[in-house]
Each structure stands twice: as C-alpha cells, then as structure tokens.
C-alpha cells in the first residue's frame, strides 16, 4: 500500500500544486499565515477548513464507491445530523449531542446499507430515497425553522482551534487517521476492494460481501453526520434546507478525482481527501480572484472533464497510438 501511493497519487499531487500556484497568482497573500488567539489564519487554512465537510464525506464515500456502490444521501444526512445537534445543543452536553447526531448518522447508513446489501436495491436508487426524504426529516426535526444555538462547546467544534489548527481540520485529520487505521489495519481494505472488484468471486471465496457493504454505508452515514455537525457548528445553527446541499456531488467528485473507479475496486483514502482539497482550492481561488462565483461551476466542470479524460481507457489507447506513430517517424 505504502509503495503504491506515491506513484498513484502523482496526478493528484500535481493538480493540487498547480491549483495552489494559480491561487497564489490571483491572490499574492495566499500562503501568508498568522497566529491569532491560538489559531492560525490565512487562505491556505481557509482551504483546509472549508474543505472539511467534503473531505469527511469523501472518507465514507470512497469506501462505498470502492464496493461498487454510491451514496447520494450524504448531503441529506448532514442536514439531519445538523438539525439533531442544533436542537439538542443548548439543553445537553457536547458528548450527548455528538453521540445523538452520530447515532442518527449511523441509523441513516444502516438504512441505506440494508436497502443495498440485504434487499439488493441498486445503490443509486436506494440512497436516492434518503436523499429526498432526508431533508424532510431534517425539517421535521427543526419544525421548519432555522434552529440556532449558543452552546459554546458546539460552537468550539466549528470555530475553535486545536494546536493552532481549526477544530474541523483537526477532526478531519483524526477521522482520516482513524479510517485508515480501521481499513488498512484490519483486512477490511482488501475485502472491500475484492467485493468491489468482483462481488461474485469474493462471495465464492467466502468473503461476507453483505457485511462489507453494510459496513461501508454505515461508516458513510457516520462521516456524513460528523460533517453535518461541523457545518451546523460553523454557522451556529441548522438550516434543514441548505445544509450540505449538493455536497454529495462534491464528495463523489472528490473520490473520482482521487482515482477510485465508480465501478469499484481499488481505492485510496488519502487521495479522496486530496480530491476534496483540490475542489476547495479551486473554490477559494475563484472567490479570491474576484471573478463571479458562478464561474466556479464552469471551472469545476472543466476539472471533472479533465479527470475523466485522463482516466479514460480510450484516451490512453489513443496516446499509445500517437506514441507509436511518432516513433515510426524518422
């Protein structure tokens, strides 16, 4: 695993560097950092901080996609978890609030997992159910209002600092390490890759493919819930309509940029997070450049196209043909 990463991650590392350089050009102070009240500030920190929700989502999403599935409901799960946290925040302590929100995320993941693994519904349809229903559930929790809170503990989760890093960034790093430890430290990684690579062959090798699939959706739900809590803590309130809106698409994009095939199989946690950072670095760059934010979508589309072209087997065939053609020329 350790041997493979550098070679595989080259394209993503280059892309991230290029985008950061472009950011540096449009905003000369981009790499400036300063410490204030025990927390680092600066555009780079901003990229990390703003990128946290998508990075967390991509940690769950990459595992789901590695099994050959997809989870469209993560944005809605963010809204549910955010609503849960916000409505409990002022009456309960932080551990209770967190446990409740993550518990809700776990249940959401379990629901998706049962639909996909046990009832064998196509993942895109199965998770569409919660994607649509989830915002309704979140609104039921907030009773249609934007629930605000003042609990300093929860606010710290969104705006505090740990060792100079914004709390969300520290949490995301912790989750990356935890996920990596669980997935690569146990046999989970291999069995997930085998399940996604060839489910029938894995099943016939005695792999509990159903358990694998159930587990990744549950983990995806928990990651989404954590992202939702952080998003709510960031704005000190839960907006059931807009929290996490369309973020499932960014998370899928991050995973794809990270080189994991939508057909399942090989995956990389680190590169999925790198994908999330690439997306956020673009977003931040466009905001800093002063161009209208609408441009953001266009740039994103171009990046998606570029990533897909790089991964397209046809294109690599084509480049092979070109190389042969060139070598034939005297």
């Amino acid at each position, binding site marked *: *695993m350790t041997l493979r990463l550098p070679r595989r991650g080259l394209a993503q590392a280059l892309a991230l560097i290029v985008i950061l350089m472009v950011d540096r050009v449009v905003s000369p102070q981009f790499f400036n950092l300063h410490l204030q009240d025990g927390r680092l500030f600066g555009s780079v920190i901003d990229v990390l901080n703003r990128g946290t929700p998508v990075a967390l989502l991509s940690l769950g999403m990459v595992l789901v996609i590695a099994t050959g599935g997809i989870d469209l409901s993560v944005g809605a799960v963010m809204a549910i978890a955010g609503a849960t946290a916000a409505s409990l925040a002022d009456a309960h302590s932080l551990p209770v609030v967190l446990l409740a929100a993550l518990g809700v995320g776990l249940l959401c993941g379990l629901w998706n997992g049962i639909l996909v693994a046990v009832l064998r519904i196509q993942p895109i349809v199965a998770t569409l159910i919660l994607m649509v229903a989830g915002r309704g559930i979140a609104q039921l929790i907030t009773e249609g209002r934007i629930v605000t809170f003042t609990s300093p503990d929860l606010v710290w989760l969104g705006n505090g600092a740990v060792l100079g890093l914004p709390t969300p960034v520290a949490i995301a790093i912790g989750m990356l390490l935890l996920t990596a430890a669980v997935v690569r*430290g*146990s*046999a*989970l990684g*291999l*069995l997930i*890759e*085998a399940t996604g*690579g*060839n489910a*029938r*062959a*894995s*099943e*016939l*090798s*005695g*792999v*509990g493919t159903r358990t694998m699939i159930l587990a990744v959706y549950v983990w995806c739900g928990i990651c989404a819930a954590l992202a939702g809590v952080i998003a709510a803590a960031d704005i000190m309130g839960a907006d059931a309509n807009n929290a996490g809106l369309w973020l499932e698409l960014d998370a899928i994009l991050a995973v794809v940029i990270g080189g994991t095939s939508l057909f399942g*199989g*090989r995956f990389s946690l680190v590169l999925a997070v790198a994908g999330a950072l690439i997306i956020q670095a673009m977003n931040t760059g466009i905001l800093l450049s002063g161009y209208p934010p609408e441009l953001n979508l266009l740039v994103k589309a171009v990046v998606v196209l570029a990533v897909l072209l790089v991964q397209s087997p046809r294109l690599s065939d084509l480049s092979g043909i070109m190389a042969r053609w060139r070598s034939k020329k005297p």
Partner: protein
Amino acid sequence: MQAPAMQTNVDLDSPLLEVRGLSKSFGALKALQEVDFTLRAGEIHALLGENGAGKSTLIKVVTGVFARDAGVVRLAGGEIAPRSAKAALDAGIATVYQEVNLLPNLSVAQNLYLGRQPTCFGVVREAEMRRRAKALLNGFGLDIDVGAPLSSYSVAIQHVTAIARAVDLSARVLILDEPTASLDRHEVEILFKAMRQLAAAGIGIVFVSHFLDQVYEICDRITVLRNGRLIGERETASLPRLELIRMMLGRELAETTETRAPAHSGAMGEVCASFKGFGKQGYVAPFDLELRHGEVVGLAGLLGSGRTETARLIFGAERADSGEAEVDGQAVRLNSPRDAARLGFGYCPEERKTEGIVADLTVRENIVLALQARRGLHRPLSRREQDEIAMRFIRLLDIRPPDPERPIGLLSGGNQQKALLARWLATEPRLLLLDEPTRGIDVGAHAEIIRLVRDLCDQGLALLVISSELDEIVTYSNRVVVLRDRAHVEELKGEAVEVSSILAAIAADGATAAQGAVP
C-alpha cells in the same frame, strides 16, 4: 478465388452458408482452428459441442461480432466479411440469442418494426404497423394482440417475435443460439413449428442447443465442434446418440501425454464429507455422495446435466432444500460459501473470469483472499505473511510471471487457474471442488494442472473434479459419478472407470429419466 455461381432460385441442396478454414485466436488460446461449416437452404442444422468448443466463437465470427484471423465465409456463393452484427443482418444473416434482445416495454408490433416503422409525413402509422405485425405473426401460427407489451407474453412468443423480426428483415440464414433453454415443452412446440415453416420456405437455420432430444427431433444435420476444431458433420438420421456423444466429449488427451493413473491400491482414506438425499428442487435431484480423503471423484455428463449444479450445492453457493451433509461424521449446515469455506471446502468455479479472479487485484491479493476471508476482519495477514504465502505458491505451482504484485487479470488463463488453486490451497482445505479446471488452458498448463490434481490427491485431499474431457476424468478419477438430466444416474468404480462405460452411462436411453421428470 473462383467465380461464385450466383444462385437466383432456392436450390435445396446447394450450400447457402459456407465456412471454410475459419480460424480465430484470443491471445494464446486458439478458439477456432480451420473450421468448416456448411448450411444448406431449407435445412435445420445443429451446431453442437461442449462449453469452449467454439460454437459461439463461430457464430460471432460469422455474424461479424469478432474479426476472423483466417478463412472464408460465403453466403449463397458470394464471399462476405461482415464487420458488425448490423452488417451481417444486412447481408441476410440474423441471430436470435437465448436472452431475447428486444425491448420488453414496447408492444409486439413496435418491436417488430422498430427502426423501420411505416410512417406518413414522419408520423408512425400505428394501425398500419399493427396490421402488418398481425399478418406477419399469423404466418408463424400466432394470433396474439400485437398492441400488448412484449413482456406480457411468454418467452417462447418473445422468441418467435425476435425470429419473425429477423426473418422479416430478409434474413436467409437464421442462427438460434440456445433458444429453448428457458422454454417448457409446449413453448418449444411453438418455436419448432415456426422453425419448420421457415425451413420449408428455404431459410437455412443453425440451431445451437445442448438438449440432444430436441436436436434429434428437429435437425436434419449435425456439426460437432470440440476444442475449436471441427469433429464432423453428419446426417441426424444416421448418427446414433452414443456416437454423437463420443464426438462431443471425444478422446484427444490420450494422444498427448496422459496415461491411466494407477488405481489407488491401498485402502482409501477416511470419509471426508458425505451427502444423503442432498438436492434442490428444479436444480439437482437429491443424490447420495461420499467423498474420501486421498480420492478423486470425477463428475461426468453433458453440459447442463447437473455437474456444476452439484458442486455449487455442495459449496453452499446454492442452498439445498433436501437432505443432509456430514463432515467427519458431524452434521453440518451448508447455507453459503462462507459456511463451506469454514468447513475447509474450496471451489474453483468454471467461470474463471466472472466468478473466480478479482481481475484488478494483484496475484498476491487474489491468493490470500480466501484465507483472509476465513480468518476474519480482525486477524489480518500482515504484508510479510501475504508475501510469503504468495511467493510460496507462485514457486510451488510455477505461476508465471512470478510477480506477486501483477494484477491477476494480466495473467494467462492457465496461470489464473493456478492462482485460484493457490487461493484455496492456502486455506489448507480438506475438500476441493474443481469445475472444469483445464478449460481454456493451453496444452502445457493442461498437463500441469492434471499432475497437480494427482499430487493433491496423494497428499490426502479429497477432490471432486468436473470435466467435459472424459479422458482427463478417467486419468485421475478413482470414482466417476455420471449425471444426466440433473440427476446422478450412475457411479463407476475401479476397473469400470473407462471412457466407454462413461459414454454408455451418459447416452443410456434417457426415456426412463425423462419420464421421471415429466410432472
């Protein structure tokens, strides 16, 4: 090339479709070697052979799905080289596959005229289309509501619709690939009636099926392929069933390397696993089977006779609904491959690509997969253990190239098969089920795999091996169970394990078994 004599009228004895010296390779695997095939106008011609014989490759080359390496295809005397299924269809060769390639949500009439609907100023003339569809199907003896969706009709009617569409597209040659596999007796009648009508109208029909009764019922001539070679073309009436089966299962290996294994002289090992009345309704009839350590049991029979089904049932890939299984005298449950793997069973399936290898993963990961699955999530094999296991089996089985980090999909078929064997050997199994372990493997690897099977057996493993190559089965089996019509019909032991006795058991008049199967 000699000038073709163009035929203007239908001459029932002249070749309609002529294939000469057709060859096709996929990498090192020779799927077709200089195959000839002749279809006359107005005949129904069976194309027979076991899996991997080259039937579907032949069809796909003739219909332009694959490009050929060598050979000629002539249609009514004129050479053709279709480059796509569409081009073949335009030339007059239509194919109807087992899975009907139509649109179930559209009406029968729409399916018949899809892409060539009668229109009036760009608007589809629905009534006209239905009228024509009705007339067309009436010609096939079908009087149905052509406005209803295709999916509301039985598979047989869907097949006839597909055939009617093909024929209406001015097909002169109709290829039916396993059209009867999912039909009941009555539906087969509907289909056969349509086929006879078409043949009478001068269309040449190629019929691919593994139901020999049906072949004898409807076909005029039979061409048999085996291992990509033409074995022979005969008239159905003058070809006894035993002879046909001999042609299909043949003897080839004897010429190459193998001699009969010395029958195990000493006492056979302990009973490893035994099955009593084990079976599943509509899958395999209940059977009794005892598997012993240090013994190879061969499963012989034609394609679809229940060989693979028996192995899948034993391995828990399908759940048995009757009978008991015992391992070392203890009653066990076999509800899933996981159960079976925990009991120390291993299964190398016939479909290596779709059910065996995980193509994107490395040889190492593929080899450790079953062992890791059995150890469970919380006891991962360290990278060093994985490397050790992988290298040990790469050396032991001589897997090439000896690179554990190569994706297994890039290996040749023989080496993939060895890696799959390694996957199970790494779990130190007590019983191995091998389904066509030598299929699609070049000759060298073939002999190696057979040697491996013998070695494993000598080491005390219990083996159940399925093969279509009777000589191969005879070479390594201590006992052979013969299957017919999804039932175990005979068990041959010791001296009785002979190609001729197996052939006789397979070909034994199916009347009794068939009567038993009729509800």
